[in-house]
């Protein structure tokens, strides 16, 4: 089985186009009340850059590559972890009148609210 991925030329442009379109449509459905968590949440999503940093660092063969790669992983991990932490905190705060969260998530939401 051939597992290699070739994303060159037009294939890459198609991927970019479809992803941009999907992002535009998905985000267009997010209500204004959630715009801050949306922003920190999408901020978290581009934290995936840490994977690129790991690739660069693990393949490093010189000291400067190790240094820059370390920097990339450090920042990327900060982006991902920080973005997740604040988004999760904010979303746990949104409650409807009478604190009636959907039953199956009540205990969890309660726990986060306390944390």
């Amino acid at each position, binding site marked *: 089985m051939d597992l290699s991925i070739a994303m060159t030329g037009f294939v890459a442009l198609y991927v970019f186009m479809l992803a941009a379109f999907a992002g535009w449509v998905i985000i267009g459905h997010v209500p204004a009340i959630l715009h801050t968590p949306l922003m920190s949440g999408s901020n978290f999503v581009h934290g995936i850059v840490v994977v690129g940093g790991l690739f660069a660092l693990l393949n490093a063969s010189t000291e400067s590559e190790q240094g820059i790669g370390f920097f990339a992983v450090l920042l990327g991990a900060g982006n991902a972890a920080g973005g997740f*932490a604040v988004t999760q905190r904010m979303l746990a705060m949104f409650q409807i009148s009478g604190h009636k969260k959907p039953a199956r998530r009540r205990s969890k939401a309660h726990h986060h609210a306390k944390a």
Partner: protein
Amino acid sequence: MFTQIPQLIIGAADLAAAFLFMYGLQRMSSPATAPSGIMVAGFGMLAAVLASFLYVFSVGAAAQSHLGVNISLAVIALAVGGGGAWWSGRKVAMTAMPQMVALYNGMGGGAAGAIAAVELFGAKTHGPTQLGVTLLGALIGAVSLSGSLVAWAKLQGVIKKPLRVKGQQAINAAVMAATIAVGGCVIAGTLGGASLLLATPTWILLFFAGALVFGVLMTLPIGGADMPVVISIYNSLTGLAVGLEGFVLQNPALMIAGMVVGAAGLLLTLLMAKAMNRSVANVVFTNFGDAPKHAQGAIQGSLRPVEASDAGIAMRYAGKVIIVPGYGLAAAQAQQKLYEFVKLLQAAKVDVKFAVHPVAGRMPGQMDVLLAEAGVPYDLIFQLEDINDDFAAADVALVIGANDVVNPAARTDKSSPIYGMPILNADKAKQVYVVKRGEGKGYAGIQNALFYGDNCNMVYGDAQAVLVKMIEAVRDLGLAAAA
């Protein structure tokens, strides 16, 4: 055969991550499903990060001898960067969220720039297209890093005033042109092998320096109230940079995640600009509030100050109250006290709603988060288009720390810098109470005709202190009635 297994797992994990990110963001379409959305996206991230350690089975010959050190470095970087940011993210006050998001965003841009730097210094990229994309990603990532850091410094209050000099735009354009020219030298040096004047690594360093300087210069002149737009722009740019570096590394998960965020950030940016009735270019390139002062027609009437306790009691006996929160509420950290007051009103059968303007605060939706933090149920919070018609039927509009977003000049005064901006119709309410620190003008530096209206009462003071007085007044009333 077995050598393919790590590759298979990495590919599957990245694919799962890309799907879970989009599914998670899709679940953000309602406050009820959103908490599970971020968890779903989080699992995607975890899977992708863990799987990427399997790269150790496919590293090049040159990196083999460094593998032990590299793995240790990776673990340390993940623990320090991830742990530190996690800790700060759990601890940060909700009012400080805009600068925190700016900071995390800058980190993402920096990481994308660093990946590009590894590729460029190692001359690992092949062909002019890949090299060009690497440079473009590096440029955008570096601009996003330094720009986000300046935005953080402004929001944190480290930089207090917008820094503006004459000919700023010409300087910015020159820096950008020079950076692009240096990028051309990097391409020529890497592809041709021949060094122009300087060695290629020096050109690369100059390229990054130029991009970083541009990010700083571009952000310095932008004022505090324009920050919702600026944060959106940098979020979008970081996404774009990540997507481009994903192309360079041939990693579709990075390409997809980056481009989804790039498009999302662009959409939010346009929404914010629309909510201010200004173009994005106008926000970034003009010094708002510095515009030559036009002759403002003297506003008829006078300001009428009232006591906080009287205002509180008036609202206690009102039927319908709409509250308009603004950045002043966040600055005074008064969101908890506000909801305490609202609960007293609700106990007295007053119908209370919140009206939030799209650009109230320092990032899109900041007021919604602050109200949610205080415990206000989200079904009481309404956006501009959903509540604007209700003001005419409201007994009281309570404006707390908001100014330009309720200025009727936006509707009527063609010469006003905010003319055409959609505003909350607080002036249509029977009575208006404005909680304000002093008689100062709003961010835009314009007088607010609302304050001079016959139905308007000014309550001067820090929002927190004013609300405490209102709460006391309404409580005393209840006690007196019970006695």
